[in-house]
């Protein structure tokens, strides 16, 4: 009756490894992909150890899919890219920075992890920019 061995080592359940839909940019690729790129670009400053970043991640991926024809969304890991985080005065994670033709046009710090909240955050600055033009 008593079995002292594990008959079936627990396997990890099927995981959604498709979470890498958002491309990570580094300090070496930031200039080319964000500052020199044309059009609206959103950069999420995050860290993998941040619970709020974990909560927002699936939402941001969903939003990235929704706006992919208009905007590009990138990710910067501030644990690695501390210099970039310092340059843009990132106070906490997640922070979404919106760039239009290489210039920062808006930022949102700690949005609620809901599609509507994040969608507003990543589209509103560009709409304001279009109106200003």
């Amino acid at each position, binding site marked *: 009756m008593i079995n002292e061995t594990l008959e079936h*080592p627990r396997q*990890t359940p099927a995981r959604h490894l498709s979470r890498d839909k958002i491309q990570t940019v580094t300090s070496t690729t930031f200039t080319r992909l964000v500052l020199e790129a044309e059009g609206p670009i959103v950069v999420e400053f995050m860290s993998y*150890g941040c619970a709020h970043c974990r909560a927002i*991640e699936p939402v941001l991926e969903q939003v990235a899919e929704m706006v992919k024809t208009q905007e590009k969304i990138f990710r910067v*890991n501030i644990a690695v890219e501390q210099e970039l985080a310092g340059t843009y005065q990132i106070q*906490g994670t997640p922070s979404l920075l919106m760039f239009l033709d290489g210039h920062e046009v808006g930022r*949102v710090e*700690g949005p609620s992890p809901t599609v509507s909240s994040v969608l507003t955050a990543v589209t509103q600055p560009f709409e304001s*920019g279009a109106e200003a*033009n």
Partner: protein
Amino acid sequence: MTSQKQTKPILLFNDECTVCRHIGHWVQRSAQSKSGETSILVQPIGDDPGTLRSLNPDLDIWDAYETIHVLMPDGSMRLGGEAVAETLRNLSNTKWFAWSFATSIFGFRPFQVMLNVAYAILADVRPLFGCESCGKPKVLRPIQWVTNWARNLFAGVPHKSPSPHFSLSSAARRRPLAVSVAPLAQSSHS
């Protein structure tokens, strides 16, 4: 790292969490024999998803931060309470009682179940002991749900959380949630 075949279990821990870091260091010390050999390898999760995938292709960095993982040499992974049991089985000062977690009575492992519950509780309360990266303690969530429910019941409007989901990466001040729009004067395309 990938070229060498893994021969020992690897315990991954969240080095941004004080509780996890203390436990990780304790395991590291306990796993070392007098000759310097280690029975289980201990390493922080880190920040590189690619490095973790090189350890195990099924390992996702977000999941690694969410719950404790032990990577087995056969390619399988143990999570949560199972990972704790596996770790204890590999330490000389705890393996004398760690056999109990594998004890099965009609397919039911009572000690493992107790360990799973204990791990779940510890995982929930670890923010209280200092873990900025763990988020809001889950033990407080029922209180929040009841408060929201009561507020909706009497106010008749859906409640929106007033506090942003925000984690400070440094000892910096908390800012209110706001979409700030910078002037476009410097924009080159205008």
